[in-house]
């Protein structure tokens, strides 16, 4: 029996696989058994009602997808009346993704959502689609620190902070989030991107720019997870182009304590379940009893230590 459980701050997950915010909704219960997931992560909610961005909101590119959905949100009362009760029928913990325009409003929303039935807050301080030119709190260490400090003071729930891959100084931002009280980091949101239609000479997206996701970004975000995981002590949750078990394992080796799967669900709606099943098989094949042993197990220097021999068994 392989132990798939992982600990993320104060929270124990039955397995390391959960959806990326914005790529999950109730409709998926037609496709998969929700009770098999490591956690639920909701679409980002905001206090204000938001219509979202102008259409078109998505465009595909080789190996990926650029989106500028722009966080349509029905507000907090709708969430409390409908979404929150719905997930109480299932076993996995509910992580609620939130966003707000200012640090104060972020904190107020976190406080409002600190209530039974919610297991953790994921602060989306990195959406590239709601501010001009993809600006977001997570672009700099200073603004990250400012918003995370207020969030930390506002909630007793485990606080996950979702970072942006669009900053040139991700490790510094990661450290800023950690010292401001984050319990875990989610690395990362989408990569600011663009596409132009050669028929019309117009941008392919109504919002001109959007966020790139999918297999195309995996090596970049994997590197960023590695960089973050080696500089902070809190868990890092990997998110970027994970479609297969192999992708998920690679992220864990790079230092991820858990993974989020997003765009892959659009292509194979049961991708998360396939990844969970594949993790068990992978561990069995490699005679690894705990999936948590994979976290950060990448070998970056030559080693002849006997206890590391299991990472490369004879076939």
């Amino acid at each position: 029996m392989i132990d798939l459980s992982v600990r993320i701050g104060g929270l124990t997950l039955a397995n390391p696989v959960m959806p990326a915010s914005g790529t999950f909704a109730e409709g998926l219960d037609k496709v998969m058994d929700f009770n098999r997931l490591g956690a639920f992560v909701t679409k980002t909610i905001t206090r204000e009602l938001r219509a979202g961005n102008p259409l078109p909101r998505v465009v595909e590119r080789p190996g990926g997808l650029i989106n500028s959905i722009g966080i349509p949100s029905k507000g907090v009362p709708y969430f409390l009346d409908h979404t929150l009760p719905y997930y109480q029928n299932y076993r996995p913990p509910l992580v609620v993704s939130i966003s707000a325009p200012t640090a104060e409003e972020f904190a107020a929303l976190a406080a409002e959502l600190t209530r039974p039935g919610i297991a953790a807050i994921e602060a989306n301080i990195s959406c590239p689609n709601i501010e001009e030119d993809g600006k977001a709190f997570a672009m700099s260490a200073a603004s990250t620190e400012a918003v995370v400090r207020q969030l930390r003071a506002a909630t007793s729930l485990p606080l996950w902070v979702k970072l942006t891959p669009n900053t040139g100084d991700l490790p510094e931002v990661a450290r800023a989030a950690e010292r401001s009280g984050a319990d875990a980091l989610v690395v990362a949101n989408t990569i600011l991107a663009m596409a132009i239609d050669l028929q019309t000479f117009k941008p392919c997206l109504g919002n001109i720019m959007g966020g790139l996701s999918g297999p195309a970004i995996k090596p970049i975000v994997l590197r960023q997870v590695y960089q973050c995981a080696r500089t902070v002590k809190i868990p890092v949750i990997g998110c970027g182009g994970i479609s297969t078990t192999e992708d998920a394992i690679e992220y864990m080796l790079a230092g991820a304590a858990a993974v989020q799967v997003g765009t892959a669900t659009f292509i194979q709606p049961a991708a998360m379940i396939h990844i969970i099943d594949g993790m068990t098989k992978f561990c069995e094949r490699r005679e690894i009893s705990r999936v948590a042993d994979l976290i950060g197990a990448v070998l970056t220097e030559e080693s002849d230590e006997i206890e590391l021999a299991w990472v490369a068994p004879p076939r």
Partner: protein
Amino acid sequence: MSSKRPVSLVTAGQATGLDLPGSDTPRSDTPRSDNPCSDKPCSDKPCSDKPWAPTVVGEIAVVVSNASVNAEYHHLIVQCGTASAAAAPGQFFQLLCPHTEGAHPFLRRPMSVYGANPERRQVEFLYKVTGAGTLGLATLGPGDSIDIMGPLGVGFTFDPELRHIVAIGRGAGLATLAPLAKAARANGTAVTAILSARRPELLVSVELFGSQGAEVIAATDSEGTSGPANIERVLRGLIDEGRCKAFYTCGSSRLLRVQQRLAREFGIPGQVAMEQQMACGIGLCYCCVKDFNVAGEIVQRRVCWEGPVFDMMEALP
């Protein structure tokens, strides 16, 4: 020339989740009131361990045939599992289209159901090659496999009392309306199908409606019969004769406007199947939203999830 895409793990026939067309699983359950540990955040939360079975499946279907029906349209028939073959008129599938040399579609492509046959476990699609996805579809031959996901969305519904309906479509909308013919007959409902296209040889679904006993009225640009004024004249005639108790439509904003006007004038209900660019197809991503007028208020709905079939009077053409 076509390279195969990554595929889902379910193969045709393995899918077990048989669901009746249109019978959705509840979209929001009532919360458990007896939650004994609601003050605890996580893993010991009570939960329903109800047996779970899929009602939407991603599965590998096998191509039975894929032939062109006229200068523009191809007719694809695939062998599939029981859940897929139970698709209702107006529902759709998300097809993972084969890659070709010049085109590598990343997302699935939504394709409305042209026909579904639970006995033979087959589902049919009618498509025109317009882009990367349909280019790939056209390369499929008998025996090839294709990853299909569905049935998705909310389809057309029939009041059991309904005796006479008008189905009006144009272009790709004709394919979406086609399965209405069989469903209406099963409901004991007579159909007048007004099928519109640029030229007579591009009309599809004519024989299909005819074979189910529907009266077909062709309207084409080349014959000058497809304009809104002529369609309105035809519709007023049908209304006078008591043969238009509901509108079922897809594929034309102009004709939708005509029907909405007549629906208001005569108090006739209607259903419209909407088209929109999609990514996930199952309500996750909110890329396929459209505005609807619901009792004077503009609301956004997801075409893939709240639709693709909507109350005709709420649609904004």
